[in-house]
């Protein structure tokens, strides 16, 4: 690579990086978009939901040209017991216009979004790993890659290098994530005929359904998911790495167990597994977010822990942060100021956006999980709820008054008594209303 100067260098061509590169290239900046995979998306995995709103602010009516799977009209939440489920769901025709969200697959989607950045003028540099940042007088002035003569210089470096963010760590703005700040998700894409998917999930052409579930994760803090694609189903489960360490259970064994659950088994019956994948998810949220900018750099998306686990939102936070960083970079370029003074505007913009505000609302979740036993929250409580529901609906001659007493008793004892149940309720309420 010849030594070249760019106005901005973006590390990582996922949703955050491509959104930043697209914004800056559209604004006339000379942008390099670096990706370590064979192509953008080659290394990337998510559960599968893309939201309309944030990307629409960058590319109007993007879903009409982007490779999406299905438009989600129904969302289900399941609380699983060993061979049972308590469920809650919402289906609404209003989610069709305007659309709320879609299922998608990252290999196609990330290539499309990076392609938009390329068309806007960003220079793609793929199959290239950034091994370190180049500093000069305390400022980030470029990147060192694993290509021969692979140093690239730029006024601004945008780090969108994903959850592992080795570069973020090298900057010292945040330390290595602790095992309780990340979860490991494993996922399978299971092929089924389109008609079968639509019949099993009660859908018309192009309509999609999502299911999230807790319970049945061997008492580990975690969340499972089933998302409908055109002719595949994405089935996966994410569990906190600290719990995985304790339990000594293989991640794919959790997946195997879930696939046997009576509520799930029939949904995927006869399907063929097309792909297995695994990825870390940032779970630290608000309390784990690092400073977002410094002299010559900004950090976006997963690399900055921008995931709202409660609402399973991630790609939209990534895209929004990339867009904001791109806009700040354009301003900095116009002013010729790449210092923390100018780029600190990025921190302030994120602070006034939904990213900061939504993550702040749930900032207590991390502490709640830390304090509470995962076995209780994700094992005995979901099971107790199922046992209570079973008793309540079973007609066996026992007086209803006694049934109610029994159901309440089941829940209380799972929580560890009256006071504990009350305390958990209060703690839970505070955790989601920070």
């Amino acid at each position, binding site marked *: 690579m010849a030594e070249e100067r760019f106005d901005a260098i973006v590390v990582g061509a996922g949703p955050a990086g491509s959104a930043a590169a697209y914004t800056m290239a559209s604004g006339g900046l000379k942008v390099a978009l670096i990706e370590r995979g064979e192509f953008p998306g080659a290394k*990337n995995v998510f559960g599968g939901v893309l939201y309309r709103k944030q990307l629409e602010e960058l590319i109007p009516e993007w879903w009409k040209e982007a490779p999406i799977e299905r438009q989600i009209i129904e969302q289900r939440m399941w609380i699983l017991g060993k061979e049972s489920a308590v469920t809650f769901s919402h289906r609404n025709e209003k989610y069709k216009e305007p659309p709320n969200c879609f299922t998608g697959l990252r290999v*196609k989607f990330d290539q499309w979004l990076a392609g938009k950045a390329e068309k806007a003028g960003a220079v793609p540099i793929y199959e290239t790993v950034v091994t370190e940042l180049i500093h000069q007088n305390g400022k980030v002035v470029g990147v060192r890659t694993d290509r021969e003569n692979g140093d690239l210089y730029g006024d601004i470096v945008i780090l969108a290098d994903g959850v592992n963010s080795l570069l973020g760590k090298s900057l010292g703005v945040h330390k290595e994530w602790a095992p309780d700040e990340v979860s490991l998700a494993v996922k399978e894409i*299971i092929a089924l005929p389109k008609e079968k998917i639509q019949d099993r999930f009660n859908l018309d052409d192009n309509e999609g359904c999502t299911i999230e579930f807790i319970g049945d994760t061997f008492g580990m803090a975690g969340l499972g998911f089933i998302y409908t694609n055109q002719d595949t189903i994405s089935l996966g489960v994410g569990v906190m790495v600290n719990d995985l360490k304790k339990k000594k259970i*293989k*991640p794919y064994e959790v997946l195997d167990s879930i696939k046997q659950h009576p509520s799930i088994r029939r949904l995927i019956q006869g399907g063929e597994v097309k792909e297995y994948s695994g990825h870390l998810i940032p779970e630290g949220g608000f309390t784990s977010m690092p400073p977002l900018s410094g002299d010559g750099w900004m950090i976006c998306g997963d690399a900055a822990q921008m995931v709202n686990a409660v609402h399973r939102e991630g790609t939209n936070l990534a895209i929004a942060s990339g867009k904001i960083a791109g806009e700040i970079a354009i301003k900095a370029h116009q002013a010729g100021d790449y210092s923390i003074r100018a780029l600190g505007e990025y921190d302030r913009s994120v602070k006034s956006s939904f990213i900061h505000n939504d993550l702040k609302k749930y900032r207590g979740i991390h502490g709640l999980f830390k304090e509470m036993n995962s076995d209780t929250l994700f094992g005995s409580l979901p099971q107790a709820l199922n046992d209570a529901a079973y008793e309540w609906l079973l007609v066996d001659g026992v007086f209803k008054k006694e049934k109610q007493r029994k159901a309440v008793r089941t829940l209380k004892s799972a929580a560890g008594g009256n006071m504990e149940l009350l305390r958990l309720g209060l703690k839970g309420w505070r955790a989601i209303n920070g």
Partner: protein
Amino acid sequence: MSQSIEERLFSIRYKVADQSHLIIKNQETCLSCKTKECNFFCPADVYEWHSDQKKTSVAYENCIECGTCRIGCPDYNIEWVYPTGGYGITYKMG
């Protein structure tokens, strides 16, 4: 419909580099490690302790580059970098 880990990994395309991007810093640390958690938490079964040879083997060619081992090893005994550009896994769907 449950598959072995070999069958699962077979669904991913790999371009294997000559050199491992995962390095055990010190096998003595593995020897004294009581939990050997890496033998369980890795989603691709990369790590295996061999008590006869007193060492942890690293099947880096199976690695799906998630990063769990870097964070999960109780002694932070695994040096973890990305495979060289263009090497490692390539998902078909993601």
